[in-house]
Protein backbone atom coordinates (compact mmCIF):
# COMPACT_ATOMS: atom_id res chain seq x y z
CA UNK A 1 0.00 0.00 0.00
CA UNK A 2 1.39 3.36 -1.00
CA UNK A 3 1.41 5.84 1.87
CA UNK A 4 1.26 9.51 0.96
CA UNK A 5 1.97 12.42 3.24
CA UNK A 6 1.16 16.09 2.96
CA UNK A 7 3.42 17.13 5.85
CA UNK A 8 5.44 14.06 6.68
CA UNK A 9 7.52 15.69 9.38
CA UNK A 10 4.56 16.66 11.52
CA UNK A 11 2.48 13.62 10.65
CA UNK A 12 5.20 11.22 11.81
CA UNK A 13 6.56 13.38 14.62
CA UNK A 14 7.86 11.25 17.48
CA UNK A 15 5.90 11.14 20.70
CA UNK A 16 8.36 13.14 22.79
CA UNK A 17 8.63 15.93 20.25
CA UNK A 18 4.86 15.99 19.91
CA UNK A 19 4.50 16.47 23.68
CA UNK A 20 6.91 19.39 23.59
CA UNK A 21 5.09 20.99 20.68
CA UNK A 22 1.71 20.46 22.35
CA UNK A 23 2.84 22.07 25.59
CA UNK A 24 4.28 25.05 23.72
CA UNK A 25 1.06 25.48 21.79
CA UNK A 26 -1.07 24.98 24.87
CA UNK A 27 0.74 27.87 26.55
CA UNK A 28 0.15 30.06 23.52
CA UNK A 29 -3.50 29.09 23.55
CA UNK A 30 -3.86 29.82 27.25
CA UNK A 31 -2.34 33.26 26.88
CA UNK A 32 -4.70 33.85 23.99
CA UNK A 33 -7.66 32.59 26.08
CA UNK A 34 -6.73 35.01 28.85
CA UNK A 35 -7.62 37.79 26.42
CA UNK A 36 -11.25 36.68 26.24
CA UNK A 37 -14.09 37.84 28.50
CA UNK A 38 -15.02 34.24 29.12
CA UNK A 39 -11.72 32.57 29.98
CA UNK A 40 -10.01 35.42 31.83
CA UNK A 41 -11.96 35.14 35.11
CA UNK A 42 -12.36 31.41 34.71
CA UNK A 43 -8.67 30.62 34.33
CA UNK A 44 -7.72 33.04 37.10
CA UNK A 45 -10.11 31.27 39.41
CA UNK A 46 -8.35 28.02 38.52
CA UNK A 47 -5.01 29.60 39.44
CA UNK A 48 -3.87 30.32 35.91
CA UNK A 49 -2.96 33.97 35.59
CA UNK A 50 -0.59 33.67 32.68
CA UNK A 51 0.75 31.07 30.29
CA UNK A 52 3.67 30.60 32.66
CA UNK A 53 1.33 28.91 35.11
CA UNK A 54 1.24 26.01 32.68
CA UNK A 55 4.61 24.44 33.31
CA UNK A 56 3.99 20.73 33.20
CA UNK A 57 1.36 18.40 31.86
CA UNK A 58 -0.13 18.18 35.34
CA UNK A 59 -1.05 21.86 35.10
CA UNK A 60 -3.21 21.05 32.13
CA UNK A 61 -5.73 19.34 34.38
CA UNK A 62 -6.23 22.62 36.25
CA UNK A 63 -8.02 24.00 33.21
CA UNK A 64 -11.76 23.58 33.70
CA UNK A 65 -13.85 21.85 31.04
CA UNK A 66 -15.78 24.05 28.60
CA UNK A 67 -19.29 23.09 27.53
CA UNK A 68 -21.63 23.92 24.69
CA UNK A 69 -23.70 25.97 27.13
CA UNK A 70 -20.62 28.05 27.92
CA UNK A 71 -20.28 28.66 24.22
CA UNK A 72 -23.88 29.80 24.01
CA UNK A 73 -23.42 32.18 26.89
CA UNK A 74 -20.41 33.64 25.13
CA UNK A 75 -22.42 34.58 22.08
CA UNK A 76 -21.59 36.78 20.28
CA UNK A 77 -18.11 37.84 21.42
CA UNK A 78 -17.28 36.38 24.82
CA UNK A 79 -14.68 34.09 23.25
CA UNK A 80 -13.25 36.51 20.72
CA UNK A 81 -9.51 36.80 21.39
CA UNK A 82 -8.39 39.06 18.54
CA UNK A 83 -9.33 42.38 17.04
CA UNK A 84 -12.26 42.06 14.62
CA UNK A 85 -10.10 43.46 11.84
CA UNK A 86 -8.03 40.29 12.05
CA UNK A 87 -11.08 38.04 11.73
CA UNK A 88 -11.58 36.84 8.17
CA UNK A 89 -14.54 34.52 8.70
CA UNK A 90 -17.06 33.33 11.26
CA UNK A 91 -19.35 30.32 11.42
CA UNK A 92 -22.41 30.24 13.64
CA UNK A 93 -24.62 27.36 14.62
CA UNK A 94 -28.37 27.73 14.55
CA UNK A 95 -28.60 27.27 18.33
CA UNK A 96 -31.12 25.33 20.31
CA UNK A 97 -33.30 27.79 22.13
CA UNK A 98 -32.54 30.78 19.99
CA UNK A 99 -28.97 31.23 21.25
CA UNK A 100 -26.50 30.24 18.58
CA UNK A 101 -22.78 29.72 19.00
CA UNK A 102 -20.07 31.40 16.99
CA UNK A 103 -16.50 30.55 16.03
CA UNK A 104 -14.23 33.25 14.57
CA UNK A 105 -11.21 32.58 12.40
CA UNK A 106 -8.17 34.66 11.52
CA UNK A 107 -6.48 34.25 8.17
CA UNK A 108 -3.93 31.95 9.78
CA UNK A 109 -6.68 29.94 11.48
CA UNK A 110 -8.35 29.31 8.15
CA UNK A 111 -5.05 28.42 6.58
CA UNK A 112 -4.15 26.00 9.33
CA UNK A 113 -7.57 24.37 9.11
CA UNK A 114 -7.01 23.91 5.37
CA UNK A 115 -3.61 22.34 6.17
CA UNK A 116 -5.30 19.77 8.40
CA UNK A 117 -7.81 18.94 5.69
CA UNK A 118 -4.98 18.71 3.16
CA UNK A 119 -3.15 16.22 5.40
CA UNK A 120 -6.38 14.28 5.84
CA UNK A 121 -7.24 13.85 2.20
CA UNK A 122 -3.67 13.16 1.10
CA UNK A 123 -3.61 10.43 3.76
CA UNK A 124 -6.45 8.76 1.85
CA UNK A 125 -4.37 8.93 -1.34
CA UNK A 126 -5.94 12.02 -2.92
CA UNK A 127 -3.75 13.90 -5.41
CA UNK A 128 -4.08 16.84 -7.77
CA UNK A 129 -5.33 14.42 -10.40
CA UNK A 130 -8.54 13.88 -8.46
CA UNK A 131 -11.87 15.53 -9.25
CA UNK A 132 -13.54 16.30 -5.95
CA UNK A 133 -17.31 16.73 -5.82
CA UNK A 134 -18.20 18.36 -2.54
CA UNK A 135 -21.79 17.45 -1.67
CA UNK A 136 -21.76 18.90 1.81
CA UNK A 137 -23.63 22.16 2.28
CA UNK A 138 -21.66 25.36 1.96
CA UNK A 139 -22.35 28.42 4.09
CA UNK A 140 -22.57 28.36 7.86
CA UNK A 141 -22.28 24.58 7.92
CA UNK A 142 -18.56 23.93 8.12
CA UNK A 143 -18.63 20.68 6.15
CA UNK A 144 -18.70 22.35 2.74
CA UNK A 145 -16.13 25.13 3.07
CA UNK A 146 -13.86 23.08 5.35
CA UNK A 147 -13.10 20.36 2.80
CA UNK A 148 -13.17 22.86 -0.05
CA UNK A 149 -10.18 24.88 1.17
CA UNK A 150 -8.13 21.80 1.93
CA UNK A 151 -8.92 20.18 -1.40
CA UNK A 152 -7.90 23.33 -3.29
CA UNK A 153 -4.69 23.46 -1.30
CA UNK A 154 -3.78 19.98 -2.48
CA UNK A 155 -4.77 20.95 -6.00
CA UNK A 156 -7.76 18.73 -6.57
CA UNK A 157 -10.33 19.89 -9.08
CA UNK A 158 -13.14 20.98 -6.80
CA UNK A 159 -16.80 20.90 -7.82
CA UNK A 160 -18.49 22.99 -5.10
CA UNK A 161 -21.95 21.58 -5.67
CA UNK A 162 -23.16 21.52 -2.05
CA UNK A 163 -26.01 19.29 -0.96
CA UNK A 164 -29.19 18.20 -2.70
CA UNK A 165 -30.35 18.17 -6.33
CA UNK A 166 -29.60 14.52 -6.93
CA UNK A 167 -30.16 14.57 -10.66
CA UNK A 168 -27.63 17.31 -11.17
CA UNK A 169 -25.16 15.67 -8.79
CA UNK A 170 -25.25 12.51 -10.89
CA UNK A 171 -24.92 14.49 -14.09
CA UNK A 172 -21.84 16.30 -12.74
CA UNK A 173 -20.32 13.04 -11.51
CA UNK A 174 -20.63 11.71 -15.02
CA UNK A 175 -19.68 14.81 -17.02
CA UNK A 176 -16.54 15.66 -15.05
CA UNK A 177 -15.56 12.15 -14.01
CA UNK A 178 -15.61 12.93 -10.30
CA UNK A 179 -13.23 10.60 -8.46
CA UNK A 180 -13.90 11.63 -4.85
CA UNK A 181 -17.16 12.54 -3.15
CA UNK A 182 -17.64 14.27 0.18
CA UNK A 183 -21.10 13.32 1.32
CA UNK A 184 -23.26 11.96 4.14
CA UNK A 185 -23.81 8.17 4.32
CA UNK A 186 -27.56 8.48 3.85
CA UNK A 187 -27.17 10.69 0.81
CA UNK A 188 -24.67 8.49 -0.99
CA UNK A 189 -27.05 5.54 -0.59
CA UNK A 190 -29.85 7.72 -1.94
CA UNK A 191 -27.69 8.67 -4.92
CA UNK A 192 -27.12 5.03 -5.66
CA UNK A 193 -30.85 4.36 -5.73
CA UNK A 194 -31.31 7.21 -8.23
CA UNK A 195 -28.58 6.21 -10.67
CA UNK A 196 -30.93 4.05 -12.71
CA UNK A 197 -33.54 6.77 -13.04
CA UNK A 198 -30.91 9.15 -14.34
CA UNK A 199 -29.88 6.67 -17.01
CA UNK A 200 -26.35 6.62 -15.57
CA UNK A 201 -24.54 3.38 -14.87
CA UNK A 202 -21.65 2.75 -12.58
CA UNK A 203 -19.39 2.19 -15.58
CA UNK A 204 -20.11 5.76 -16.75
CA UNK A 205 -18.54 7.07 -13.54
CA UNK A 206 -14.92 7.31 -12.45
CA UNK A 207 -15.55 7.24 -8.70
CA UNK A 208 -12.72 5.95 -6.53
CA UNK A 209 -13.32 7.32 -3.03
CA UNK A 210 -15.92 8.83 -0.77
CA UNK A 211 -15.43 10.77 2.44
CA UNK A 212 -18.43 10.09 4.62
CA UNK A 213 -19.21 12.21 7.62
CA UNK A 214 -21.67 14.47 9.44
CA UNK A 215 -23.76 11.45 10.49
CA UNK A 216 -22.88 8.40 12.55
CA UNK A 217 -22.79 5.18 10.57
CA UNK A 218 -21.60 1.65 11.05
CA UNK A 219 -18.83 -0.45 9.58
CA UNK A 220 -21.52 -2.36 7.69
CA UNK A 221 -22.67 0.81 5.98
CA UNK A 222 -19.11 1.50 4.92
CA UNK A 223 -18.90 -1.96 3.41
CA UNK A 224 -22.26 -1.58 1.73
CA UNK A 225 -21.30 1.72 0.12
CA UNK A 226 -17.93 0.33 -0.91
CA UNK A 227 -19.57 -2.67 -2.58
CA UNK A 228 -22.37 -0.69 -4.24
CA UNK A 229 -20.00 1.83 -5.83
CA UNK A 230 -16.81 -0.28 -5.91
CA UNK A 231 -14.92 2.48 -4.10
CA UNK A 232 -13.02 3.11 -0.86
CA UNK A 233 -14.89 4.89 1.90
CA UNK A 234 -13.09 6.95 4.55
CA UNK A 235 -14.59 8.13 7.79
CA UNK A 236 -14.31 11.80 8.71
CA UNK A 237 -14.77 13.54 12.05
CA UNK A 238 -15.18 17.17 12.87
CA UNK A 239 -17.37 19.66 14.66
CA UNK A 240 -17.81 23.36 14.08
CA UNK A 241 -16.50 24.22 17.56
CA UNK A 242 -13.18 22.63 16.49
CA UNK A 243 -13.35 24.34 13.04
CA UNK A 244 -15.25 21.58 11.26
CA UNK A 245 -14.00 18.59 9.26
CA UNK A 246 -10.31 17.77 9.55
CA UNK A 247 -10.23 17.01 13.27
CA UNK A 248 -9.96 13.30 12.61
CA UNK A 249 -9.71 11.41 9.32
CA UNK A 250 -9.01 7.87 8.24
CA UNK A 251 -5.87 7.13 6.29
CA UNK A 252 -5.52 4.52 3.56
CA UNK A 253 -5.57 1.81 6.25
CA UNK A 254 -9.17 2.67 7.17
CA UNK A 255 -8.81 1.59 10.77
CA UNK A 256 -9.95 4.53 12.87
CA UNK A 257 -9.58 8.27 12.43
CA UNK A 258 -6.22 9.94 13.10
CA UNK A 259 -6.79 13.00 15.25
CA UNK A 260 -4.23 15.68 14.36
CA UNK A 261 -2.69 15.89 17.79
CA UNK A 262 -0.34 18.76 17.06
CA UNK A 263 -3.54 20.83 16.76
CA UNK A 264 -6.04 19.02 18.96
CA UNK A 265 -5.33 17.88 22.48
CA UNK A 266 -7.32 14.69 22.71
CA UNK A 267 -8.87 13.26 25.85
CA UNK A 268 -11.65 10.79 26.48
CA UNK A 269 -13.50 11.30 29.73
CA UNK A 270 -16.23 9.59 31.67
CA UNK A 271 -19.17 11.90 30.89
CA UNK A 272 -20.59 11.43 34.38
CA UNK A 273 -17.50 11.98 36.52
CA UNK A 274 -15.32 14.00 34.15
CA UNK A 275 -12.46 11.60 34.84
CA UNK A 276 -9.95 10.88 32.08
CA UNK A 277 -10.22 7.39 30.62
CA UNK A 278 -7.46 5.30 29.17
CA UNK A 279 -7.13 3.98 25.65
CA UNK A 280 -9.77 1.62 24.27
CA UNK A 281 -12.32 2.94 26.79
CA UNK A 282 -15.48 4.47 25.44
CA UNK A 283 -16.25 7.94 26.72
CA UNK A 284 -16.84 11.54 25.76
CA UNK A 285 -14.27 13.16 23.52
CA UNK A 286 -12.77 16.34 24.95
CA UNK A 287 -10.68 18.53 22.66
CA UNK A 288 -8.51 21.61 22.99
CA UNK A 289 -7.79 23.56 19.83
CA UNK A 290 -4.09 24.40 20.08
CA UNK A 291 -3.72 26.66 17.06
CA UNK A 292 -6.86 28.72 16.56
CA UNK A 293 -6.16 32.24 17.71
CA UNK A 294 -9.47 34.03 17.09
CA UNK A 295 -11.55 31.68 19.26
CA UNK A 296 -9.58 29.60 21.74
CA UNK A 297 -11.40 26.63 23.19
CA UNK A 298 -9.88 24.69 26.05
CA UNK A 299 -10.93 21.20 27.08
CA UNK A 300 -14.16 21.38 25.15
CA UNK A 301 -16.71 18.66 25.82
CA UNK A 302 -17.84 17.49 22.37
CA UNK A 303 -20.61 15.21 23.70
CA UNK A 304 -19.50 12.68 21.09
CA UNK A 305 -18.85 9.19 22.41
CA UNK A 306 -15.85 7.27 21.07
CA UNK A 307 -12.69 5.47 22.21
CA UNK A 308 -9.01 6.09 21.51
CA UNK A 309 -7.42 3.14 19.70
CA UNK A 310 -4.35 1.51 21.13
CA UNK A 311 -1.20 1.06 19.15
CA UNK A 312 0.39 2.49 16.04
CA UNK A 313 -1.26 2.55 12.63
CA UNK A 314 0.41 0.83 9.71
CA UNK A 315 0.76 4.19 7.98
CA UNK A 316 3.38 5.25 10.55
CA UNK A 317 1.50 8.40 11.51
CA UNK A 318 2.06 8.96 15.20
CA UNK A 319 -1.20 10.80 15.72
CA UNK A 320 -3.56 8.57 17.65
CA UNK A 321 -6.76 7.23 16.19
CA UNK A 322 -10.30 7.29 17.52
CA UNK A 323 -13.14 4.89 16.80
CA UNK A 324 -16.29 5.79 14.94
CA UNK A 325 -18.58 8.08 16.87
CA UNK A 326 -20.68 5.64 18.85
CA UNK A 327 -23.28 8.02 20.22
CA UNK A 328 -23.96 11.29 21.98
CA UNK A 329 -24.15 12.27 25.61
CA UNK A 330 -27.01 14.67 24.89
CA UNK A 331 -30.28 14.44 22.98
CA UNK A 332 -28.97 15.93 19.75
CA UNK A 333 -30.49 14.34 16.64
CA UNK A 334 -28.67 14.09 13.37
CA UNK A 335 -31.17 14.30 10.53
CA UNK A 336 -29.72 13.95 7.04
CA UNK A 337 -26.44 15.29 8.35
CA UNK A 338 -27.97 18.29 10.08
CA UNK A 339 -27.71 18.64 13.86
CA UNK A 340 -31.06 19.26 15.51
CA UNK A 341 -32.01 19.45 19.15
CA UNK A 342 -35.59 18.55 20.10
CA UNK A 343 -35.74 21.83 22.03
CA UNK A 344 -35.36 23.74 18.75
CA UNK A 345 -38.48 22.06 17.46
CA UNK A 346 -40.32 22.68 20.70
CA UNK A 347 -39.38 26.35 20.65
CA UNK A 348 -40.97 26.81 17.22
CA UNK A 349 -44.11 24.83 18.01
CA UNK A 350 -44.75 26.58 21.29
CA UNK A 351 -44.72 30.06 19.83
CA UNK A 352 -47.67 29.21 17.58
CA UNK A 353 -50.90 29.96 19.48
CA UNK A 354 -53.08 27.47 17.58
CA UNK A 355 -50.96 24.60 18.83
CA UNK A 356 -51.65 22.79 22.08
CA UNK A 357 -49.05 21.70 24.60
CA UNK A 358 -48.40 18.15 23.52
CA UNK A 359 -46.23 17.19 20.58
CA UNK A 360 -44.06 14.35 19.35
CA UNK A 361 -41.11 14.07 17.04
CA UNK A 362 -40.93 11.00 14.82
CA UNK A 363 -37.93 9.99 12.77
CA UNK A 364 -38.39 7.51 9.96
CA UNK A 365 -36.45 6.29 6.97
CA UNK A 366 -37.81 7.17 3.56
CA UNK A 367 -35.61 5.12 1.28
CA UNK A 368 -32.15 5.83 2.65
CA UNK A 369 -32.95 9.39 3.72
CA UNK A 370 -34.24 10.52 7.07
CA UNK A 371 -37.75 11.85 7.37
CA UNK A 372 -38.80 14.10 10.22
CA UNK A 373 -42.45 14.01 11.23
CA UNK A 374 -43.65 16.49 13.82
CA UNK A 375 -47.00 15.61 15.35
CA UNK A 376 -48.78 18.41 17.16
CA UNK A 377 -52.12 18.74 18.83
CA UNK A 378 -54.24 21.69 17.87
CA UNK A 379 -55.48 24.01 20.56
CA UNK A 380 -59.26 23.60 20.71
CA UNK A 381 -60.08 27.22 21.56
CA UNK A 382 -58.38 28.40 18.39
CA UNK A 383 -60.42 26.17 16.10
CA UNK A 384 -62.81 28.20 13.95
CA UNK A 385 -64.14 25.39 11.80
CA UNK A 386 -62.37 26.71 8.72
CA UNK A 387 -60.40 24.16 6.70
CA UNK A 388 -58.26 26.79 5.00
CA UNK A 389 -57.15 28.09 8.38
CA UNK A 390 -56.10 24.62 9.46
CA UNK A 391 -54.18 24.15 6.23
CA UNK A 392 -52.53 27.54 6.72
CA UNK A 393 -51.60 26.56 10.26
CA UNK A 394 -49.96 23.42 9.00
CA UNK A 395 -48.00 25.32 6.36
CA UNK A 396 -46.94 27.86 8.96
CA UNK A 397 -45.55 25.18 11.24
CA UNK A 398 -43.69 23.58 8.32
CA UNK A 399 -42.24 26.93 7.22
CA UNK A 400 -41.18 28.07 10.67
CA UNK A 401 -39.55 24.74 11.42
CA UNK A 402 -37.75 24.78 8.11
CA UNK A 403 -36.44 28.26 8.80
CA UNK A 404 -35.23 27.25 12.24
CA UNK A 405 -33.73 23.80 11.71
CA UNK A 406 -33.11 23.86 7.92
CA UNK A 407 -34.90 20.56 7.52
CA UNK A 408 -38.24 20.30 5.78
CA UNK A 409 -40.49 18.41 8.18
CA UNK A 410 -43.81 16.67 7.63
CA UNK A 411 -46.34 18.10 10.08
CA UNK A 412 -49.35 16.17 11.34
CA UNK A 413 -52.17 17.88 13.20
CA UNK A 414 -53.95 15.89 15.85
CA UNK A 415 -56.91 16.28 18.14
CA UNK A 416 -56.14 17.37 21.68
CA UNK A 417 -55.54 14.40 23.93
CA UNK A 418 -54.75 12.03 21.09
CA UNK A 419 -50.96 12.02 21.46
CA UNK A 420 -49.60 9.95 24.31
CA UNK A 421 -49.40 11.76 27.61
CA UNK A 422 -46.41 11.11 29.83
CA UNK A 423 -46.14 11.21 33.52
CA UNK A 424 -42.72 12.40 34.47
CA UNK A 425 -40.16 12.63 31.71
CA UNK A 426 -41.89 12.83 28.36
CA UNK A 427 -40.74 10.64 25.51
CA UNK A 428 -41.07 13.23 22.81
CA UNK A 429 -38.72 11.69 20.30
CA UNK A 430 -39.50 8.40 18.61
CA UNK A 431 -36.62 7.32 16.42
CA UNK A 432 -37.73 4.52 14.10
CA UNK A 433 -34.78 4.87 11.76
CA UNK A 434 -32.95 1.70 10.96
CA UNK A 435 -29.34 2.35 11.89
CA UNK A 436 -27.09 2.78 8.89
Amino acid at each position, binding site marked *: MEINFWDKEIETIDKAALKVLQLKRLKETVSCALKTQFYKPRLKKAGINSADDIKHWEDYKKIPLTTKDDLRECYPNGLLAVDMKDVVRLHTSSGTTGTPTVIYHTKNDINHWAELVARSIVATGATNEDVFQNMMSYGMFTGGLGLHYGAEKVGLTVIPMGGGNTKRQIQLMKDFGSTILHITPSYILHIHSKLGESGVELKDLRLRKAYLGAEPYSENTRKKVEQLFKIDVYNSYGLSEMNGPGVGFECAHKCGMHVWEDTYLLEVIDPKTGESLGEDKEGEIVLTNLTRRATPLLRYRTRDIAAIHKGLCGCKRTHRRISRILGRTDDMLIINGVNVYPSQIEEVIMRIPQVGTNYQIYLEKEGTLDKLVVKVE*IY*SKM*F*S*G*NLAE*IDALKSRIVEELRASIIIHPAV*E*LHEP*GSLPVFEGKAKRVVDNRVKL
Partner: protein
Amino acid sequence: MKLTQISIFLENRKGRLFDVCSLLGKNKVNIRALTVAESEQFGILRIVVDKPEATAALLKKHGFVASLTDIVAVEVADKPGGLADILKVLSVSDINVEYMYGFVERKSDKAILVFRFDEPDKAIVLLKKKKIKVIGRKEIGDL
Protein backbone atom coordinates in the same frame (compact mmCIF):
# COMPACT_ATOMS: atom_id res chain seq x y z
CA MET B 1 -82.72 33.59 10.31
CA LYS B 2 -79.15 32.43 10.46
CA LEU B 3 -78.65 28.87 11.54
CA THR B 4 -75.79 27.50 13.57
CA GLN B 5 -73.63 24.74 12.27
CA ILE B 6 -71.17 22.71 14.31
CA SER B 7 -67.71 22.12 12.86
CA ILE B 8 -65.72 19.28 14.37
CA PHE B 9 -62.01 18.74 13.81
CA LEU B 10 -61.34 15.05 13.24
CA GLU B 11 -57.94 13.53 12.72
CA ASN B 12 -57.82 10.78 10.19
CA ARG B 13 -58.03 7.91 12.60
CA LYS B 14 -60.07 4.76 12.38
CA GLY B 15 -63.47 5.02 14.03
CA ARG B 16 -63.30 8.72 14.72
CA LEU B 17 -66.42 9.59 12.70
CA PHE B 18 -68.20 6.71 14.37
CA ASP B 19 -67.23 8.13 17.77
CA VAL B 20 -68.95 11.42 16.98
CA CYS B 21 -72.07 9.86 15.51
CA SER B 22 -72.48 7.35 18.28
CA LEU B 23 -72.14 10.08 20.91
CA LEU B 24 -74.82 12.12 19.16
CA GLY B 25 -77.05 9.08 18.74
CA LYS B 26 -76.85 8.15 22.40
CA ASN B 27 -77.83 11.68 23.31
CA LYS B 28 -80.76 11.72 20.88
CA VAL B 29 -79.29 14.41 18.68
CA ASN B 30 -80.63 14.15 15.18
CA ILE B 31 -78.33 15.17 12.34
CA ARG B 32 -80.25 17.17 9.73
CA ALA B 33 -77.43 17.81 7.34
CA LEU B 34 -73.82 16.76 7.20
CA THR B 35 -70.70 17.20 5.16
CA VAL B 36 -67.04 16.38 5.58
CA ALA B 37 -64.27 18.63 4.33
CA GLU B 38 -61.16 16.53 4.12
CA SER B 39 -57.47 16.99 3.96
CA GLU B 40 -54.71 14.39 3.92
CA GLN B 41 -54.57 13.67 7.62
CA PHE B 42 -57.64 15.29 9.05
CA GLY B 43 -61.16 16.32 8.21
CA ILE B 44 -63.71 18.81 9.37
CA LEU B 45 -67.13 17.35 9.95
CA ARG B 46 -69.90 19.91 9.58
CA ILE B 47 -73.33 19.11 10.89
CA VAL B 48 -76.65 20.87 11.26
CA VAL B 49 -78.63 19.68 14.27
CA ASP B 50 -81.70 20.89 16.12
CA LYS B 51 -79.90 22.05 19.29
CA PRO B 52 -76.47 23.25 18.15
CA GLU B 53 -75.25 24.99 21.35
CA ALA B 54 -76.11 22.09 23.63
CA THR B 55 -74.68 19.63 21.13
CA ALA B 56 -71.44 21.56 20.80
CA ALA B 57 -71.10 21.64 24.58
CA LEU B 58 -71.69 17.89 24.68
CA LEU B 59 -69.01 17.29 22.07
CA LYS B 60 -66.47 19.49 23.84
CA LYS B 61 -67.20 17.75 27.09
CA HIS B 62 -66.20 14.53 25.39
CA GLY B 63 -62.93 15.95 24.15
CA PHE B 64 -63.84 16.87 20.61
CA VAL B 65 -62.61 20.07 19.03
CA ALA B 66 -65.80 21.80 17.94
CA SER B 67 -66.82 25.31 17.01
CA LEU B 68 -70.01 27.05 15.94
CA THR B 69 -70.43 28.79 12.62
CA ASP B 70 -73.28 30.88 11.18
CA ILE B 71 -74.83 29.40 8.11
CA VAL B 72 -77.89 30.08 5.99
CA ALA B 73 -80.24 27.32 4.86
CA VAL B 74 -82.31 27.96 1.77
CA GLU B 75 -85.18 26.05 0.24
CA VAL B 76 -84.87 25.41 -3.43
CA ALA B 77 -86.97 23.62 -5.97
CA ASP B 78 -85.62 20.10 -6.53
CA LYS B 79 -85.37 20.48 -10.28
CA PRO B 80 -82.71 21.28 -12.85
CA GLY B 81 -81.52 24.88 -12.53
CA GLY B 82 -82.76 25.27 -8.95
CA LEU B 83 -79.35 25.89 -7.50
CA ALA B 84 -78.23 28.03 -10.41
CA ASP B 85 -81.13 30.45 -9.82
CA ILE B 86 -79.97 31.06 -6.26
CA LEU B 87 -76.31 31.37 -7.11
CA LYS B 88 -77.14 33.93 -9.77
CA VAL B 89 -78.80 36.17 -7.18
CA LEU B 90 -75.73 35.96 -4.95
CA SER B 91 -73.20 36.31 -7.68
CA VAL B 92 -74.57 39.57 -9.07
CA SER B 93 -74.44 41.01 -5.54
CA ASP B 94 -70.85 39.99 -4.93
CA ILE B 95 -71.56 37.63 -2.07
CA ASN B 96 -69.07 34.82 -1.77
CA VAL B 97 -69.93 31.26 -0.93
CA GLU B 98 -67.17 29.78 1.22
CA TYR B 99 -68.70 26.35 1.01
CA MET B 100 -72.12 24.73 0.69
CA TYR B 101 -73.82 21.41 0.91
CA GLY B 102 -77.33 20.16 0.37
CA PHE B 103 -79.86 17.59 1.38
CA VAL B 104 -83.24 16.59 0.09
CA GLU B 105 -86.31 17.20 2.17
CA ARG B 106 -88.17 14.04 2.97
CA LYS B 107 -91.80 14.85 2.31
CA SER B 108 -91.77 17.39 -0.47
CA ASP B 109 -90.18 18.15 -3.78
CA LYS B 110 -87.88 20.76 -2.28
CA ALA B 111 -84.20 20.52 -1.57
CA ILE B 112 -82.48 22.37 1.23
CA LEU B 113 -79.09 23.93 0.71
CA VAL B 114 -76.78 25.02 3.47
CA PHE B 115 -74.47 27.94 2.70
CA ARG B 116 -71.52 29.45 4.46
CA PHE B 117 -71.35 33.05 3.18
CA ASP B 118 -68.73 35.65 3.87
CA GLU B 119 -71.59 38.06 4.65
CA PRO B 120 -74.52 35.99 5.90
CA ASP B 121 -76.75 38.91 7.00
CA LYS B 122 -76.48 40.66 3.69
CA ALA B 123 -77.18 37.38 1.91
CA ILE B 124 -80.35 36.76 3.90
CA VAL B 125 -81.77 40.20 3.06
CA LEU B 126 -81.02 39.68 -0.57
CA LEU B 127 -82.45 36.17 -0.74
CA LYS B 128 -85.64 37.25 0.93
CA LYS B 129 -86.04 40.15 -1.45
CA LYS B 130 -85.92 37.62 -4.27
CA LYS B 131 -88.61 35.56 -2.53
CA ILE B 132 -86.27 32.71 -1.83
CA LYS B 133 -87.22 30.83 1.30
CA VAL B 134 -84.68 30.97 4.09
CA ILE B 135 -85.17 28.22 6.65
CA GLY B 136 -85.31 29.16 10.33
CA ARG B 137 -84.19 27.22 13.32
CA LYS B 138 -87.65 25.95 14.18
CA GLU B 139 -88.21 24.60 10.71
CA ILE B 140 -84.92 22.73 10.78
CA GLY B 141 -86.02 21.11 14.00
CA ASP B 142 -89.30 20.07 12.44
CA LEU B 143 -87.83 18.48 9.36
